[in-house]
C-alpha cells in the first residue's frame, strides 16, 4: 500500500515515476476519510487544495524541476497560518478564522510542491501535554485508542503513527513536538531556535517557540528540515544560517560518539518501564561504539518552574491580541472594556485562561523580581550548564517523556501533574538547543521515546547521530499493528 511507504521511499518512487503525487495524495485523503473520524487527528481536511497541489507537483516532476519531497503530502498543526484554510489553534477564539497569508514554512512547503492534506488537532494555543485541551475534539493514540497522543502537537504525531500522513509539522515550546512523537512512537525534531522561521506561527511563548518536523524516520525528518529551515527576513529572531543540509546521513558511525545522560533526567520522576527501555537502548549504543557517561546538570531540577514562569509570562502578552476586534470571536457589550473581557472569557478555554492568569501574576508589580527575573536568571545558568557539557559531549541523551502514553482523562483534572511531565524536554527550549525524539523500544506495549539534544546550530550532526541510534534499534522502528 502507498501509505506504508516512508517519505523518502515515496520520494524515490516519485522520481522513478512508479507512482504519481495525485495517487499518493488520493490514497492519504481516502485513509483520512475512512479512518480519521475514529482517530481525531484532523481539524480540517483540504481535498480540493491538496489534489490541485498534487497535480502541480506531478507537472513539476515531469519537467525535471522537482525537489526530493515534491509530491509528498503533509499535514500541518493548526497554529500555523495557511492562506484561505481555516486556522483555529483548536480554540473557540479562532473558530472560522481564515488567514489572509501563509506562514513562511507553509510558503516553503508549497514552493517545494508538497500537497497540504489539512490541519491537525492540538491543545488550545499549544498549551498542554495531551491534546485534551482542544476545544473541538479528542485525538486518540494509534497504539491504544483509550490513551492520549501526547501534546500539544498530538494530531500531528498521531497522524504519522496512524498512517494518515507521511509527514507533518508541529511546534515545540516546552516539548510539544518531541513528547507527542515519543508517545506515538514517531520521530519529532525541534531545530535550533531561529533556524526555522516562526513567521505565521500563532505565538505562544516567542522566545521558546520553534516549528519542526514529525515523521516516521530520522531520514524523513532530515529531508523535511531541509525544506522548512533557513533565514527569513520576516522573523527578526531568525538566524542568518542557510537551510539545514544533511549530507551522508547513511554513513554515520556511532563509534566514539560521546553521549552524556544527566542523572537529573533519570530520577524518581521516570517510570520503571521507561527507565529500563532507555537503559537497554543506551547499552545498544555502547555496543555500537558510543561512549555513554552519566553527568549532573543540577539546574534541570528548576526547569519546570522556570518554564511555568517564562512561558505563561510571554503568553499573557502574546494572547493580549485576542480582543474581539480584528479577528476571532467577539462577545457583545456596549462598554469597550467589558466587550474585551467577555470576549476573552467566552473565547478561551480553561487552561489558556489559567496560563494567562499565571503570566499576568508573575509579571505584575511586586512579583516581577521574585519570579520573572529569577526565572530568567535560572534560564541563563541552565543554558550555561548545558553549553559546558557540550564542550565534552556530542549529545545529551534522556528519555523524552518520563511516562508512556497515559489514558484519556487520566490526568486532565490534575493540571500540575501534567506540567511536571515536561522536565526532560524543557531545557532544549530554554537554551534554544536542537533536540530530537526517536522511538527506542516499548514498555507495556507502548512506545518509549529517546531524546538526543546537541549544541546550538549542530542540527545536521544531531540528525546524523539520531539516524545512527535509530539504525541500532531496528525492533523499535515499527508502527502500530492496528493501522498497519
Amino acid at each position, binding site marked *: 500500500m502507498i501509505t506504508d511507504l516512508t517519505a523518502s521511499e515515496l520520494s524515490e518512487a516519485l522520481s522513478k515515476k512508479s507512482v504519481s503525487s495525485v495517487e499518493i495524495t488520493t490514497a492519504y485523503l481516502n485513509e483520512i476519510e475512512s479512518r480519521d473520524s475514529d482517530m481525531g487527528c484532523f481539524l480540517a481536511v483540504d481535498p480540493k487544495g491538496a489534489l490541485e497541489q498534487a497535480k502541480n507537483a506531478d507537472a513539476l516532476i515531469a519537467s525535471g524541476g522537482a525537489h526530493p519531497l515534491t509530491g509528498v503530502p503533509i499535514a500541518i498543526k493548526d497554529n500555523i497560518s495557511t492562506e484561505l484554510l481555516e486556522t483555529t489553534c483548536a480554540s473557540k477564539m479562532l473558530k472560522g*478564522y481564515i488567514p*489572509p*497569508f501563509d506562514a513562511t514554512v507553509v510558503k516553503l512547503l508549497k514552493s517545494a510542491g508538497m500537497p497540504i492534506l489539512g490541519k491537525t488537532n492540538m491543545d488550545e494555543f499549544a498549551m498542554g501535554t495531551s491534546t485534551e485541551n482542544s476545544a473541538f475534539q479528542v485525538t486518540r493514540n494509534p497504539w491504544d485508542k483509550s490513551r492520549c497522543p501526547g501534546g500539544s502537537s498530538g494530531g500531528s504525531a498521531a497522524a504519522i503513527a496512524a498512517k494518515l500522513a507521511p509527514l507533518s509539522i508541529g511546534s515545540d515550546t516546552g516539548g510539544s513536538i518531541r513528547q507527542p512523537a515519543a508517545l506515538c512512537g514517531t520521530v519529532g525534531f525541534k531545530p535550533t*531556535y*531561529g533556524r526555522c522561521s516562526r513567521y505565521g506561527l500563532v505565538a505562544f511563548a516567542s*522566545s*521558546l517557540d520553534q516549528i519542526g518536523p514529525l515523521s516516521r524516520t530520522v531520514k524523513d525528518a532530515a529531508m523535511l528540515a531541509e525544506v522548512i529551515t533557513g533565514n527569513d*527576513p520576516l522573523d*527578526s*529572531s531568525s*538566524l542568518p544560517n542557510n537551510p539545514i543540509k544533511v549530507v551522508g546521513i547513511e554513513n554515520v558511525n556511532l563509534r566514539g560518539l560521546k553521549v552524556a545522560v544527566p542523572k537529573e533526567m533519570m530520577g524518581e520522576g521516570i517510570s520503571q518501564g521507561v527507565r529500563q527501555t532507555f537503559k537497554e537502548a543506551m547499552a545498544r549504543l555502547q555496543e555500537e561504539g558510543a561512549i555513554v557517561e552519566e553527568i549532573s546538570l543540577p539546574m534541570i*531540577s*528548576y526547569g*519546570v*518552574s*522556570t518554564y*511555568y514562569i517564562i512561558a505563561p509570562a510571554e503568553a499573557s502578552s502574546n494572547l*493580549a491580541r485576542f480582543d474581539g*476586534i*480584528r479577528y*476571532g*470571536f*467577539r462577545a457583545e*457589550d*456596549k*462598554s*469597550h*472594556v467589558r*466587550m*474585551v*473581557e467577555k470576549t*476573552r*472569557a467566552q473565547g478561551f478555554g*480553561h487552561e489558556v*485562561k*489559567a496560563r*494567562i*492568569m*499565571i*503570566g*499576568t*501574576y508573575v509579571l*505584575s508589580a511586586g512579583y516581577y*523580581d521574585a*519570579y520573572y*527575573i*529569577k526565572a*530568567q*536568571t*535560572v*534560564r*541563563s545558568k541552565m*543554558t*550555561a550548564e548545558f553549553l559546558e557539557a557540550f564542550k565534552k559531549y556530542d549529545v545529551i541523551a534522556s528519555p523524552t517523556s518520563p511516562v508512556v502514553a497515559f489514558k484519556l482523562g487520566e490526568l486532565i483534572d490534575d*493540571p*500540575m501533574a501534567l506540567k511536571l511531565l515536561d522536565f526532560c524536554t524543557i531545557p532544549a527550549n*530554554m*537554551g*534554544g538547543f536542537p533536540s530530537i525524539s526517536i522511538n527506542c523500544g516499548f514498555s507495556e506495549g507502548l512506545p518509549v521515546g529517546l531524546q538526543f539534544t546537541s549544541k*546550538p546550530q549542530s542540527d545536521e550532526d544531531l540528525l546524523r547521530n539520531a539516524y545512527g541510534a535509530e539504525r541500532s534499534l531496528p525492533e523499535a522502528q515499527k508502527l502500530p499493528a492496528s493501522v498497519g
Partner: protein
Amino acid sequence: MSISLDEVRHVAQLARLELDESEVLALQGELNSLLGHLVDISQIKASLGEPVTHAVSLRNIWAEDIVGETLGRDNSLRNAALVKAGLFVVPAIIED
C-alpha cells in the same frame, strides 16, 4: 506564598478576563498549587547569573525601509466581527 480570592480577581482584571465565581475559586486553587511549586525559583539567589530574555543573542536586525507586499485593506478586515466603511468597529470608548 499564597494568592487570595481578591488577588485572583485583580489579576483577572489586569488580564482582561471576566471570570465567574466558580472560575475564581478554581483558578485560586490552581495558581496556589503552581506557586507552591515555584518556591524553589523564588528562593534562588539573584547573584546566580545574569538574566536572559532569549536563547540566542541576536543584535538588532534592521529591515530596509522599503514598502513590500502588504495584505491590503479588504484582506485585513476580512476576519473582523464588525466592519463599517473599511474600518474596524469597536464599542464607544468615551461614553456620553
